């Protein structure tokens, strides 16, 4: 569904490439997490997968990005939008400002796709229910809290039923209950095989519990790609700035005191930690 080869990208008027030789292949229905320090290239990768790079940001792009059968560089963003959705880092950037209610805001993207009114309302309400916003359908988008705006941004993109959904830190403003709900919605979409999902996130515990596959970006390069546990256990000894869950840190501290076996693979979730420690 997604193929990236030899992707190298520099923003206008910058010296260092933000992405520096990315090769990547993602199958339909995968739920893939992307982690890395701030500035490692996570948001840039999101823009590259959705055509904002190079179409909106300009800059210098080398290599190829294929998403849902489109060559992103040769396809206008307006054509990509039907198949590829992006949820921005700051939800406020996403709200159109052109609609009076939450429901209209969600329907806005569908109007632009030419969906007929009955289906439009049904798809919009479905997306609002999935994100727990159905009770706020008649409110103005600008009266929502940060967390609610973030859920609205997810709902608006979800309603467009893109085959590929890219989300840049979609749960940063959400409380734990909201974060869980968002991850469950995303996992459901991926499991249905109808949507391929790539998301960046700092909340490692949630990623470890929900995603199939984890990528690490470091200084614009893809330095790790695999099962969350393997990747996050490796990250502990690397200069990638990915961090670790407290489960990992606790067992690491125990390993330093020789309370667990030398070769123990570090756990990233509670269940894995309990298994190692029992």
């Amino acid at each position, binding site marked *: 569904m997604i193929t990236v080869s030899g992707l190298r990208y520099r923003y206008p008027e910058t010296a260092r490439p933000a992405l520096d030789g990315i090769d990547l292949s993602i199958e339909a229905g995968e739920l893939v997490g992307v982690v*890395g*320090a*701030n*500035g490692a290239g996570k948001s840039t990768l999101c823009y590259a997968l959705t055509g904002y790079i190079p179409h909106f940001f300009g800059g210098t792009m080398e290599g190829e990005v294929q998403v849902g059968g489109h060559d992103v560089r040769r396809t206008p963003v307006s054509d990509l939008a039907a198949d590829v959705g992006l949820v921005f*880092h*700051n939800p406020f950037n996403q709200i159109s400002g052109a609609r009076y209610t939450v429901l209209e805001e969600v329907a806005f993207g569908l109007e632009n796709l030419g969906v007929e009114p009955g289906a439009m309302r049904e798809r919009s309400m479905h997306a609002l229910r999935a994100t727990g916003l159905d009770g706020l359908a008649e409110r103005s988008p600008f009266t929502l*809290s*940060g*967390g*609610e705006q973030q859920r609205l941004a997810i709902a608006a993109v979800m309603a467009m039923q893109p085959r590929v959904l890219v989300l840049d*830190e979609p749960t*940063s*403003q*959400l*409380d*734990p*209950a*909201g974060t869980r709900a968002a991850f469950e919605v995303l996992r459901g979409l991926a499991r249905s095989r109808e949507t391929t999902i790539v998301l960046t996130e*700092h909340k490692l*515990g949630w990623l470890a519990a929900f995603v199939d596959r984890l990528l690490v970006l470091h200084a614009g390069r893809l330095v790790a790609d695999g099962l969350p546990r393997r990747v996050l256990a490796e990250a502990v000894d690397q200069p990638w*700035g*990915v*961090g*670790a*869950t*407290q*489960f990992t*840190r*606790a067992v*690491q*501290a*125990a390993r*330093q*005191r020789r*309370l667990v076996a030398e070769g123990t693979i570090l756990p990233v979730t*509670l269940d894995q*930690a*309990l298994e190692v*420690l*029992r």
Partner: protein
Amino acid sequence: MRLELRDVRFQYPTGVVALDGVNLTVGSGEALALVGENGAGKTTLVKLFNGLLRPTVGTVLVDGEDSRRQTVAQLARHVGFVFQNPDDQLFARSVRDEVSFGPRNLRLDEAEVRRRVEQALDDVGLSQAIGRHPYDLAVPERKLVALAAALAMHTPALVLDEPTIGQDAQGVERLGALVDRLHAEGRTLVSITHDLDFCLMHFDRVAVMAGGHILADGPAPDVLRRVDLLRQAQVEPPELVQLALGLGWDTMVRTPEAFAAQLAEVRH
């Protein structure tokens, strides 16, 4: 700097009651974390401490003085405030001007202003950005600029609204070290946070909020082990608490190192 709410009720003009009879005293030098679901009333509560909001009913005391008798500018000398969204706060053309603004308003001499600005930017790890335009920085860095601006005021109390959001692992670690240092200096700290792992490691006291009420308030390790209560407030216990409870421990630990030490003891 002691902060106090007495029987406070707050109702927004829309009719929403955000706080419904809240009593809370934050003693001088205490570090308190406020946790709870979105919409629980946490941000409303802290805005009472610097006069951005005034209680509909009840009394807010800042250092023993009724906040109604103090202007926002007067309160700003006592209580620093860092918003959740830095864009609510930043306005200057350079990071230096942004962080200098508050100290200049205190009519400090230029050498002192410069000293404070450099120290505050060093504290948040942004010394190299001093000449940049705040809006050329990424959102997580803009949050740190807003924090530096509050630090440079040297207020005896500081309120932080979700300081760790958007920060990467290194950023969270730096914030933790900063909170520890401010606490050691005797500042009064109040922070809203959803990051309960951060909360457990760096705050002595936790208040759990839901629906405009304080459900529980006490020492962090005691409050954060009350799983049912936390679930009621839509938050999850910190990972180290989950681990300790999963192992059937009665003793809660606050850091990975303390966990390993406790594990050694249990195994003996």
